[in-house]
């Protein structure tokens, strides 16, 4: 492996996927591109973690998928946030904020 990717904390990827899908339904590749751009290229999501994560989220019922043609008229699997996914996003975001705040507090206090 030539390139080092910042290691996403466990659970963080799920949160990022949920947040990104909250904007609009998209397919896996678009999702990975979106996360990469939004994080100003700091975060790269490897396919090896992206697709299993999507699978997991779908099993939890937080997202749904369907095959639809893209703008170039190629079939792709689009993921959509479900109602329970939306609730999960709120809860996860809240707990993430708390977590970051806690870590900040410790880092600044040190």
């Amino acid at each position, binding site marked *: 492996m030539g390139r080092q990717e910042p290691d996403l904390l466990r659970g963080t990827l799920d949160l990022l996927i949920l947040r990104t899908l909250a904007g609009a339904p998209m*397919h*896996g*590749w*678009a999702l*990975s*591109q979106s996360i990469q751009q939004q994080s100003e290229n700091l975060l790269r999501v*490897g*396919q*090896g973690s992206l*697709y*299993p994560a999507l*699978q*997991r989220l779908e*099993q939890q019922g937080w997202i749904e998928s369907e095959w639809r043609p893209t703008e170039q008229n*190629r*079939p*792709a*699997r689009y993921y959509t946030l479900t109602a329970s996914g939306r609730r999960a996003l709120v809860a996860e975001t809240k707990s993430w904020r708390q977590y970051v705040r806690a870590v900040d507090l410790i880092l600044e206090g040190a």
Partner: protein
Amino acid sequence: MSDELAFHLDMETEKNIRNGMSPTEARRVALIAFGGMDRVAEEMRDVRNISWLEDLVHDLRHVARALARSPGFALTAILTFALGLGANATMFGVIDQLLFRAPAHVTSPDRIVMLSMRGPGSTGIGQPTFNWPVYRVLRERVRSFDAIALADYQPMDVPIGTGADAQSLSGLLVTPSYFTVLGLRPALGRFMAASEGNEPVGAAVAVISYGSWTRRFGNARNVLGTTLDIANQRFTIIGVTPRGFTGTELGEVDLWLPMTGALRLQPLPSNWTTMTSATYARVFARLRAGVSRERATDEVGRVLTAALPKEWYVNGRRALLTPLVQSRSAQQGGTARVTALLAAMSVTVLLIACANVANLLLARALRRRREIAVRLALGISRGRLARMLLTESMLLALLGGVAAVIVASWAGSLIRGLLFGDITWATGTVDRRMLAFTALAAILTGLVTGLIPALQASRPDMTSALKAGVREGGEQRTATRSTLLVLQAALSVVLLVGAGLFVRSLIALTATRLGVDPDRVLTASMNLRAVGRTPDESDEIYRQALARVRALPGIASAAAAYTTPFGASWGADMRVPGRDSLPEAQGPFYNSVSPGYFATLGTRILDGREFTDADRPGSPRVIVINATMARLLWPGRRAVGECIDFVTDSLPCATVVGVVEDIRRQGLFEGPTYFVHVPLTQDVLALRARHVLVRPRGDASRMIEPVRRAVQTAAPGLPYAKVQRIGDMSILVSQLRPWRLAAALFGAFGLLALALAAVGLYGVVSYSVAQRIPEMGVRVALGASRRHLAELVVRQGVAVTSIGVALGVIVALITGRFATPLLYQESPRDPIVFGIVVATLFVVAVAASAVPAWRASHVDPIEALRTE
């Protein structure tokens, strides 16, 4: 899945191209970034939790390949399973239809009950026959039923037409409510209306079965409204029962007539609707919704106690309502017990088959020790390995199950034909329930069989297995295999002992003198009463019939009589002059017979003479009595010359002129019975000729048709003449069935078990010889004789067998008491049977070891030692 990944890859590639790479380069970079499609796909699959399915497919493929490489092994295992499972599928088919299944087309059979009266302490169904007055009382007063019906205890021979075209159908007399209780829908037309069953005289209508609609009327729809000529009356056909419905019992019914509409067919007095002394019919009822069987039983009990004559409640007999399906099995009595025992036996055979295949699998696993050890070393999980071995046995069992269905369809029709010829089966030998059963049994079998090898294989000592050759480290597993073998031998002993006991019972039973040769004597009779002939006309017709039969070629002798052995009987009191009471025995029963009666039946005359033409109306009154009566009344001296009084008349006493051996009256098993024969001509008890008995010279069954024609044409306009061998009378057939069934199937199962055990023994012994070839080589090199080596091998086989036989004998001695009530003049510990079985097993053990022994004794020492 992979579509999605491919899409991702394509998008990545296009992006790279947009960034200025060449297409090839773009693809390569995308692939690198991707990090291996298979790995991602696999991780995703793990998330989806379907890996077990993929593993299964993989295992199946692997196992199938492995089996295809050793077809001999696969075939043996599948065949073994096929026989074991086939035996069970066959038994299931018989038992299911005989005991567990409601008659076809009956609506919610669990709500239908049959009434019987049962004494305290009795476990069976009790007495299931009632009469019209009971039916009327229940119908009027019991609230727990939606409908209640009365149906004759058994179908009767209904004569259709007269003369040369006369036929006989099996007809059941029922109340119109019979069809309501069963919840049947007619295939054509309608069932009887309530008014058609009114008393005292109902309508002359008939419902015919689908089968007779096909056979007699070719399924013509205009059958409705046509008439059947029964007993000089025209019965109009009003409906056809659904296809496959043949009545609630096991025998087939061709037509149903309203009980009150067919009065003249019944040998009942004219006041039968009020007569309470006779019982002749079953009571069926459908429970009202929401009423439990217990509540209904209580109500029926109350109503009957209030309405019935006191003697019905003697000995505390109580009303009992049995669900329809159970009532069927309860009435099968002995057959049900034997079938249950046989079911246990077929499971035993299956266990033996399992042990056998487990043994084969173990041998295979031993041969594959190294392969397995390598797999373990390469990181396959033990669970996965065990699963693979289980897959193997499952696959074998399922294939065996498929073959078992073929075995069962064949064996099923064989058993039906040989042992249940008088029963109509609702479905073919293979049906959905049987298939489901076989599938379930196959899965269980696969699990049980695979368990031992799987457990063994999942904990091998890896390093030693890798280091050692095939030769070492197999002791523990040989022990397991020997244990399985001991088990097999033991189970075989149990089965064979069972077979022996039943075969000896059957031999004793058929050798028992019944006082008649059932298979050599034909009886012929006609329902002349049904066509309105007077007794005097009947006498003349039978005289004619007898003369015509005697004139046929190939007849040894013929006679006329009121009744026949295993037919109806007539009882009446008698007195012996000078005695106040007689020793306790059943009877006396009477038959009125023509000269030649005993010669025709094959009954031995022990003392005195048979009747002759000289015994006429005016001559001295004479009787012939049975041996039991002679022994009980005049012990220690000649009965001939003594005399008895008939209570029914005031004429002088009748003199005993002959003593004959006992003739069975009703069944194979009956206590001491007084039996008196009187000459037909002297007409002592108004017992007229109602049967012609015929003893053909050769095969009796081939004379049935000639005799039937001769009797049928004895006079113009006669109803159907029924001719059958005494041995085919249903009362005898059904009594002999349990023994025939048990002897035949125990024998088959026993031989099957023996064959399986022999194969198992052969397998183990020859495998151990193969393992010990180097040792044998050393022995030969050191001067051991061939004979010695052969003995060594045979001794091993015999040793294992001995333990199994000892165990089996103990088990057979313990379990023998379960079979005791089913045996006839046979101890469950019969030393002859045990001796033969033990000897057989040892012969088989020696035979199974013979080939491996020969191989051992012909080991080439140089060859054997070189392989090291």
